[in-house]
């Protein structure tokens, strides 16, 4: 199950959204597509966009298959988002995670807390 749309952001200076959200249907899971780069440089945009989206009562399913560049700030942002969702009783689910996302989260000891330990790179969890 890969609900994610194709990544449109490539490395560069274009200010395209870091996070994309699929249309919210009542009670249907909301899709969240992480883009190519989730680093400190992108973190403010990422936070703004995550906060701007109203996920309603939907579960959030994240597609991290396009992530090729991520750092501690980016992973911390995802962790904070996961905590935020958890307080609302809506744990974050993963549709897919790129090898870089998996490797980085494991390297920082965050894979378990992000729910990425069972995921396989670039495929359904």
């Amino acid at each position, binding site marked *: 199950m890969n609900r994610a749309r194709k990544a449109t952001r490539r490395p560069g200076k274009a200010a395209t959204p870091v996070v994309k959200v699929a249309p919210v249907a009542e009670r249907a899971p909301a899709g969240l597509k992480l883009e190519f780069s989730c680093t*400190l*440089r992108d*973190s*403010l945009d*990422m*936070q703004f966009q*995550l*906060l701007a989206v109203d996920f309603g009562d939907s579960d959030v399913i994240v597609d991290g298959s396009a992530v090729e560049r991520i*750092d*501690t*700030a980016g*992973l*911390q*942002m995802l*962790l*904070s*988002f996961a*905590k*935020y969702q958890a*307080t609302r009783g809506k744990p974050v689910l993963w549709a897919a995670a790129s090898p870089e996302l998996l490797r*980085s989260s494991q*390297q*920082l*000891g*965050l894979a378990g*807390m992000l729910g990425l330990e069972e995921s396989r790179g670039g495929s359904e969890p």
Partner: protein
Amino acid sequence: MTIDLESFHEVFFLESFEALDSMEGALLQLVPGVADSETVNTIFRVAHSIKGGAGMFGFNEVATFTHTLETLLDELRAGRMEVTAPLCEGLLQSVDQIRGMLGAIQKQQVFDPATANALKAEFTRLIDERKPRGGQAAPRPVPPADADAGRRRWQIRFKALPDLLNRGNDPLRMFSELAGLGDLRVVADCSTVPDLPTLDPQICYISWQLELATEAPRSSIELIFEWAEGDCELDIQPLDGPVAVVVPTQPAPAPGAPSLPAAPTSAVTSAEGNSIRVAIEKIDELLNTVGEIVITQSMLSQLSRQLEGLHADRLRAGLAQLDMSIRELQERVMRVRMLPVGTVFSRFPRLVRDLSTRLGKKIRLQLSGEQTELDKTVLEKIGDPLVHLVRNSVDHGIESPAARIAAGKPEEGTVHLNAFHKGGSINIVITDDGGGLDKQRIVEKARSKGLIDANAQLGDEHIFELIFLPGFSTAAQTTDLSGRGVGMDVVRRNIKDLGGNIELQSELGGGTSITITLPLTLAIVDGQTVSVGTETYIVPVVTVVESLQLKPGAVNHVYGHGEVFPFRGEYLPVIRLHEVFGVAPRSGVLHEGLIMVVEGDGRRAGLFIDQLLGQQQVVIKSLETNYARIEGVGGATILGEGTVALILDVPGLLRMSPPAQGARGGLRESA
């Protein structure tokens, strides 16, 4: 708000180039076959720091290359590989490559990676083929956890301080490097990570506890966190050995963060903490401001002389005190611009080593006076002339070992660079104990080129002067190192442009000594103030030969050469300053004014002026920056009464004038 890592690039480049200089110096100390762990560690640390910085800024080519270099150095450090001459050569080449790569990135140029790739491949081959000292090839042992006697377990506690991420330090990169040392287990504590709305994405809230099983020494672990020093709390403890309290970083106090016991401050840290890096522009701005204060103070002093009474006396006394303080301030600010000449000398060990190897000569380079300080701008401009002179000494001065032995000299020649203060100047002397200059050959060459008359009798001083003429070269064979005959004139011109001087002494068979005299600074100049009409000009004292009043009829007209007058056996052209600058003179008759004989670029001329006013030290203001470049004018200054005076560029003025006439023939008496 975004993080602009580019603002840190220049600092990284500066520090990396300095570190590469240290690395090169350390590499030159390596002796093949001798295990010098301290020197290898120094080299390793430089490679590691550059790798870390390059990785952080995304300079991946540099990071990859230095990673391979670091791996090789790690083998050397661990004693699994021996220092050999080819290896030293390869390591020196790697310094050149890193310099080239960084230089290209800094100047946004394309760097040809061919040599770097070849070196990297060679290093990789050496690493793969390494043999233990016993001589038997063995793959790198990968002992099972807790089973190898050389493997230790370390517990590392790491907590980020608020500026860690902002300064480009990423725990992810550090932990990846740690994982490269052995088996790493990471446990993150995310209890303080706030919810999304209150999260500051530029602060790292997570802290970690890590366990590392590795053969690497503690210093390797500490190195990984080196760039984060001051931005994290770090505690490294051995889990299976004696417990030692080590806090290698000096964390800044974080609000609400528990502080670790302070580590004793090492001498190195203390020394580092006592210096800061300041952009030269800031110092120049400061110097400029001080210059303005000097001018204002001078104006006030001049005004105070017109006042009378008790208060006026007190005012003058106060201003005299102020004058002393300001002069001291000016001198101290100028000292900030001063750097030890050793920063230029440091390039010569490598240069002499490479050239002597290439030429098959044995040469010992002796350096002294490296701590002698010189203005930064002067230092930057003296580097190339010095390189040329040292190359000449190595290439043409020092003989081959066989020739030296035949001449009864030691097989190894010596090139000595010495810097010292003399009066208000700095002297740099380059001496070699080589073959010296053959005066007869120089004279013959000058005759064959028509530079001197066939029957001219020249003293030593004049003979040596000939080698500074454009195109003059006595090298029997032109090499690609030196001897093209285009160098010494350029060397002298560059030194003259700095307000300096160059002299040469040589003895056939005994060696050559070249003395360069340089001003301490280019920011101020000792000037002779002169008046022409209502204008005041500054003539740098260093260019003034003599001032004289001509007798009526002493000036002659030479067709195509203008006015000339006799001076010590030669005819010098007259430069009428009022004509050059378009001002009305007090008198246009030459014997009613004064002639100031000036010298520049080996030429002399007489400046026609109204009168001499006095000598004073003036602060040089760039005319080029504030207005435009004007031929014959080197800059401007503001005088005590607030007027602007032009500082003459004597070599420039001489270039504008017709050349001097050497013979009396064809002269026409002037009125």
